[in-house]
């Protein structure tokens, strides 16, 4: 895939995307007693042994590293659900299955820090990798097909996937746009040169990166 191999092209690095994903909430089962924590992002706890509670991912990982809790893998991370999702991905060529926006990052974090809390860890891991590959492949093939459109709509794309394809799609769209109506679009450098806008009623679309 275009941006996959080259991290410099993507807008954010994988680490940055992961950092953003760490704000997602996840359920943990603490094994210690602690008063509620009051953060800017909200109040978490109280922490009572063996009673599940919701905390941000980063806190869960921090506690897990200190052996103070067990992380409960989210519901979608079960072998059955992932098998179903994988089948769905393979069956439908166009659409993407519904998965959490940060599924790649969350699963990565859990695989790194909470291997013992995930039942059938290897199965889950390979399933998620398969799903990711299938989805990326689908994105690639759908990008191969797009032409001449002014916008691309792909629902249910996840953060990591968007991050990878966004620069490419943005530039590709710009290029298409330019080639389609070369006279209409002033080059960015020449935009200041006061070239008149074409009397075409088409509104000018600022291309987003």
């Amino acid at each position: 895939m275009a941006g996959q191999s080259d991290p410099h092209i993507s807008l954010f690095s994988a680490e940055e995307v992961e950092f953003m994903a760490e704000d997602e909430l996840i359920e943990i089962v603490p094994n210690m007693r602690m008063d509620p924590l009051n953060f800017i992002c909200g109040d978490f706890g109280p922490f009572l042994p063996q009673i599940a509670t919701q905390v941000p991912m980063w806190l869960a990982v921090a506690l897990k590293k200190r052996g103070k809790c067990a992380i409960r893998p989210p519901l979608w991370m079960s072998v059955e659900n992932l098998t179903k999702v994988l089948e769905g991905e393979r069956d439908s060529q166009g659409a993407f299955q519904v998965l959490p926006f940060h599924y790649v990052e969350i699963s990565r974090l859990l695989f790194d820090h909470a291997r013992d809390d995930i039942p059938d860890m290897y199965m889950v891991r390979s399933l998620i990798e398969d799903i990711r590959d299938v989805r990326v492949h689908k994105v690639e093939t759908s990008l191969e097909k797009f032409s001449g459109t002014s916008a691309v709509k792909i629902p249910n794309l996840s953060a990591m996937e968007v991050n990878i394809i966004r620069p490419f799609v943005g530039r590709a769209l710009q290029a298409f746009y330019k080639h389609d109506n070369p006279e209409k679009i002033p080059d960015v450098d020449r935009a200041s040169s006061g070239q008149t806008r074409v009397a075409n009623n088409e509104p000018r679309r600022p291309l987003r990166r």
Partner: protein
Amino acid sequence: MKIKSLKLREAHKGSANASFCSILWDLNAHHLVTASSSEPSISIHDPLLPSNPPRVLRHHRDGVTALALSPNSTCLSSGSIDHSVKLYKFPGGEFETNITRFTLPIRALAFNKSGSMLAAAGDDEGIKLINTIDGSIARVLKGHRGPVTGLAFDPNGEYLASIDSIGTVIYWELQSGRTLYTLKGVAPDTGSDTSILNVLSWSPDGETLAVPGLKNDIVMYDRDTAEKLFTLRGDHTQPICFMSWSPNGKYMATSSLDKQILIWDVNRKQDIDRQKFDNRICCMAWKPIGNALAVIDVMGKYGVWESVVPSSMKSPTEDIPSSRSKNSNGLLFFDEEDEEDQELSMSGSLSDLGEDSHGESEPPSRKRLRKQSVIDDDQHEDVYNELNLCTKTEYRKKVHRINKESSDKERDGSRSMMTFRPKMQEAFQPGSTPPQPGKRNFLCYNMLGSITTIKHDEYSHIEIDFHDTSTGPRVPPMTDYYGFTMASLNENGSVFANPCKGEKNMSTLMYRPFSSWANNSEWYMRFEGEEVKAVALGGTWVAAVTSLNFLRIYTDGGLQKHILSLNGPVVTAAGFKDELAIVTHISDCLPSNEQMLEFRIFNISKGTQPFKGHLPLTPGSYLTWFGFTEEGQLSSYDSKGVLRVFTSQYGGNWLPLFSASKERKSGENYWVVGLNASKLFCIVCKNPDSFPQVLPKPVLTLLNLSFPLASSDLGEEALENEFMLNNLHLSQIQKRIEVMADEGLDTTPLDDEAFDIEAAQDRCIFRLIASCCNGDKLVRATELVKLLSVEKSVRGAIQLATALKLPILAERFNNILEERLQSKTEVLKTSLPRSKHDRNVKADVAASMALTATERNGDQTACLEDSREVNDAGKNAGPSQVKNLQTQRPSNPFLKLPNNQEEKKVEEVMSESQSQGPSNPFFKSSNKVGEATGIQQSHRPSNPFLKSTAK
């Protein structure tokens, strides 16, 4: 029709393929026996405790294809693919003998009515009739051309019916061994699939033989003539593979290859209920006493379908017919049988008790039902039946005469066997799970931690874990050569005990402290001729209750301190600090299957017994958990999911504080671990599991406590529940305050807590008042206002009522407020001569309060009068006046000092009789607005010092 889903529990590891499984009830419904043709083991389950592991009999070398239980439930026989038929003692399960062998797999077994003869058949040619006493083969019946898959002895002992896999039914006469009738091709040909076995079954009265038909139906054949009587045809879309008559023969359960079970009312020839399953049900058995059906599917999963027959209909065990029916005349058929049925239901009432509480009123209504059913019947069918009966009369008479004597005897025998005795609950440890082979199980699980054990060949391995790993002590795992099955855990130590197993392995009690200054401070006690049944652990003591009904109390150092005798066999015990609670049986269970339990609370350090009494349980349930809340309240949880907490209200009572049936989401069981004042801590287990596994580590779920409130017309159950809970907490706290005050301790924190709860309670009541007002329940609203604890809230309520335009209600609220203030001043008055200064201040406050109240009142009357008096200023003056008074009074207490006594009286009178105010002389002297409000209002604000000067 209602669709319920029935959860099945695995009894046998199903192979990937479907395999024929069998299921049986014993006579008293104490046991369920299952077997699978893919597994060599036979399991004997306890239907009361389905989570307990079954007793497993492994004597066969290959899958067990057939099971049969002798009619008196003392002898179990099994047939297997390994070609052998074995006999076992029942319910013990001791192997007795290989009673016969075949050259090919066995497919069917059947005992005759007396249990003296066993018929066995299978892929071999010929049905063997075996004497069960000596194992001799009485006869070999040859005639089938395919593997025999079903055998049924006629209940009257004359015939044997058999069916083979190609669908041929043969009636055999037992006396001679002759073939009476051969019905070829009447049942479906099941081919070579051994997971489908054609079966057939006699009705309990022996009059009809049910055989699966070719059109996805059941065909009934006559007993004597083998003529087709009628069929049960309905919604089965595939051939029927199993059927079972209810014990009274009024209903029939059929299962089909289409994976559903239909329940039929046989008289009406109509299906009354159905159930769909994931897999094909290959065997079913009606509970001999009760309205339930045990089922097992081809994957080896079994379950018990409770209340199969709707409660509006007759119980399937009512009027169990005698094996010999008396009908000598087709026309008299119904009346005669009714008489007999009545006799039977009287005599059989012992067995029926508890199954249908309305037994007394049944016979007449049943009669009606029966007649109705005749009318309901197809006219044609009806005539047909009657004709049939008439033609058969002669033949039957003869037969019955021959059989009369013997079957009478049998009937007596069977009746005595039918007496059903519910079992007394066995002793258990709260928070323990039953042992499972090859897996860890909990000996103790509480809010603090858990003790788990796993059994190896010679020894067990015990681990103690604390939930809170940061503060709990770290306890090394230990190897247990005693085989401990009971344990209890608290923060100081753990206690273990094992039952005695023979003479060599005596019952032992072991205490293991977690931290001690001395080495080797764990200790052992051995019991000779005595067995520990339950253990409990408290602050500084260890208690064990033994089979001799002794309560033995030890110090944590191991000193034998007390031995008490208890009233009955122990059920369980729990400890909390100084308190020990013990549950014992008072007497045998009631016939309606209610455990009779008693609890006692002991205070070990003081040597007192603060409470004892009956332990209430939901009817038909047993105790599953017993312990203390985090605050030290005694609580219990029963198998029907009702949590009760003991309170000293009403002289010591149990309050139902949680009901699983109200809470339960589909298919969840709650395994209680503990509770605090407002929450229940439990482990949620998905059906059919009723207890958690050690791994993965169970996670506690918090559930709110809630009274099982009836749904009221107000629709505010949540608020009402909060109201009651707050009341409960308040009374508990007040009790604790009293206790602490008696001991001379500081009660400030508790006072604060009580205040918080009171405030919360006022908020809750206030919301209830609001919903009462909206729901037009004014009387209830006034009752609620009386319960408010702070005057401010009462004022709020008055405002609310005014805002909602309910002047009558507001008036009432006002009266309540006045009464309250009045009683308060009276209280103050009585406590006057305490100290001079105190008195002054208090009186002052009270005065200002009373004033504001009356002021407000005056305010309202003023509003009414305003229109007449044309005094606009008065309206505005009202509130400011109040303010004036309130601010002014406390600021100059000395001014009022001399007048204090007087003024108090004023208030009293005033609040009592505001209407006659003006006539009262004190009003003027106190300057307290005794006059017409208009006048007063006009001059009051203008000269705030008037009052003091007037005094």
